[in-house]
């Protein structure tokens, strides 16, 4: 019995691909920090108030993690500096800045995640088409992408938003359109490499249909790169959303958004700097979290290709 136990322990442990990837990821400290930060921010956004329970009970949600309702005005307590009662002070309407920052994470995350999903879906579809068809379709798609890439991304977002008008949905569309060309380029390049592999050739020789090859042989092999860039582009999207909100094209008030908070606060920079400094730290940490996560995921992906 004892003998058997030692022999199994002596054998080298056989790890699956996924286990090895997970181990690389865990050992990469920056990636782990990024992952933890992202999880915390997502939890903050979800549990800012008790909307889950409130929806079931059919009542208005009340603040859960946030100490105050973000839109309750208290004009007697306008522009109060940070204190035990209001950790990050109050704004011009006497609203609690800390609570508004907590609620503001919702706009940032929603825009970041949905814009990247939109850009990723459009970009992956077009990139696959361009990379696999290798015909005039490829040429047309890639030339159009080149032209779109001629605009600095922020200016592209500005132009689309100027045309569509402001609002959460329009912000997502504008940033989604801004990100799509980058995804097309990424997926196109990756597809070109993968389609030359023998297993794709074999599948084609066996008469496997084109959509099945794309779905089962090509898509799974490029999903890693798309996820890595997706994480980094969530960071870009959140930064752009904040910038566009700062200009005054963000979601309409009183919904709290970090960029808008800084915009409203910056005119009080000399007397009430907390109004613009604290929301900026929230943006910086959130963008940093997704950048760290993306970097870590890339390391994991790179180490996989070394195996």
């Amino acid at each position, binding site marked *: 019995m004892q003998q058997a136990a030692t022999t199994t322990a002596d054998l080298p442990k056989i790890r699956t691909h996924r286990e090895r990837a997970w181990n690389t990821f865990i050992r990469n400290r920056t990636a782990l920090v990024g992952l933890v930060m992202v999880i915390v921010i997502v939890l903050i956004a979800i549990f800012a108030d008790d909307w889950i329970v409130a929806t079931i009970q059919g009542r208005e949600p009340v603040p859960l993690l946030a100490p105050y309702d973000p839109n309750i005005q208290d004009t007697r307590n306008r522009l109060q500096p940070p204190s035990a009662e209001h950790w990050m002070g109050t704004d011009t309407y006497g609203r609690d800045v800390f609570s508004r920052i907590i609620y503001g994470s919702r706009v940032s995350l929603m825009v970041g995640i949905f814009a990247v999903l939109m850009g990723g879906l459009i970009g992956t579809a077009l990139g696959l088409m361009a990379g696999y068809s290798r015909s005039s379709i490829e040429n047309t798609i890639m030339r*159009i992408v080149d032209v779109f890439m001629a605009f600095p991304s922020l200016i592209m977002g500005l132009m689309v938003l100027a045309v569509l008008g402001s609002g959460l949905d329009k912000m997502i569309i504008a940033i989604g359109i801004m990100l799509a060309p980058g995804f097309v380029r990424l997926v196109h390049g990756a597809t070109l490499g993968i389609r030359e592999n023998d297993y794709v050739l074999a599948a084609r020789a066996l008469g496997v249909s084109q959509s099945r090859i794309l779905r089962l042989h090509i898509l799974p092999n490029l999903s890693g790169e798309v996820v890595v860039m997706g994480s980094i582009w969530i960071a870009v999207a959140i930064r752009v959303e904040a910038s566009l909100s700062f200009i005054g094209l963000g979601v309409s008030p009183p919904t709290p958004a970090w960029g808008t908070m800084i915009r409203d606060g910056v005119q009080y920079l000399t007397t009430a700097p907390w109004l613009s*400094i604290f929301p900026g730290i929230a943006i910086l940490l959130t963008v940093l979290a997704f950048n760290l996560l993306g970097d870590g995921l890339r390391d994991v992906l790179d180490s996989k290709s070394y195996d």
Partner: protein
Amino acid sequence: MTRYLITRLLLAIPTLLAVFTIVFLVIRIVPGDPAVAALGDYASQDAVEALRERMGLNDPLPVQYADYLGNLLRGDLGTSMINGKSISEQIAYVLPYTLQLTASAVLFGTLLGVPLGVLTALKRNSAADYLGRVFSLAGLSIPAFYLAILLIFTFSVRLGWLPAIGGGDLYGDPIGSLRYLVLPTLTLGLIMMASVTRLTRSTMLNVLREDYVRTAKAKGLSKWVVIFGHALRSAWLPIVALLGLWTASLIGDSVLTEFVFSRPGLGKLLIGAILQRDYSALQSIMVIYAAFVVVVNLLTDLTYGFLDPRIKHN
């Protein structure tokens, strides 16, 4: 080399044309009537109709497109829908401010970013390397407008060293206007420096592992000859290739920077046009931005051709 030059120049023409077309089309998708948008909902029917006529909005789309391209070729960017001023004149006035800022920020980012990248690559895993990496990640994550606000808060509000807003008088007092250039340059330059440092570091790390670098060391060449003569010489290529990309994204960030510092420039003009719903100005400013980027990419390609012996001698 000459052939490479000519091909690149010729390739820029269809790109520019396509860019102009996209700007034209995007502006035409504006839901509703741009004339109503510009004049407001309470404008009289006559005023709206007069503006539509003056802007050529009543013409069929192909006629509008032909007019638009014709005007662009003649360098005529039209007049503002809001104040009737010539857009070309407004752009000509602010363009030097934007060029001054862009050039100084690119210089700042490159001249400091490359040495820092080389240094952190040579001292891999040291405290300096660690600090450099933290700095790069922070620079990649901070929005330009927030960095601008932090710099204004520190150097203008608290220390009172530098002016917080305005661009100075570039035409009357060019030397005096440099004071106004410092904080905007720091804003964009630090962000660019972060990307440059990061890429230089990773390229150098790859190059330092190459056989020819090891051979150079083994031959007994001095450390500096190996770094500058061998390693950096080939590390330059990817850095230059991406410089164009970063300059383009810096041009995007310059919009926000000009806005925060209330600095005259293309960006401030652009945001003004968007907020006032001045679609004719918006169209012309977008054209200038896109042309700016196409030129930057062209210059990058040319530098690349000059640096890469494979292209230079082909």
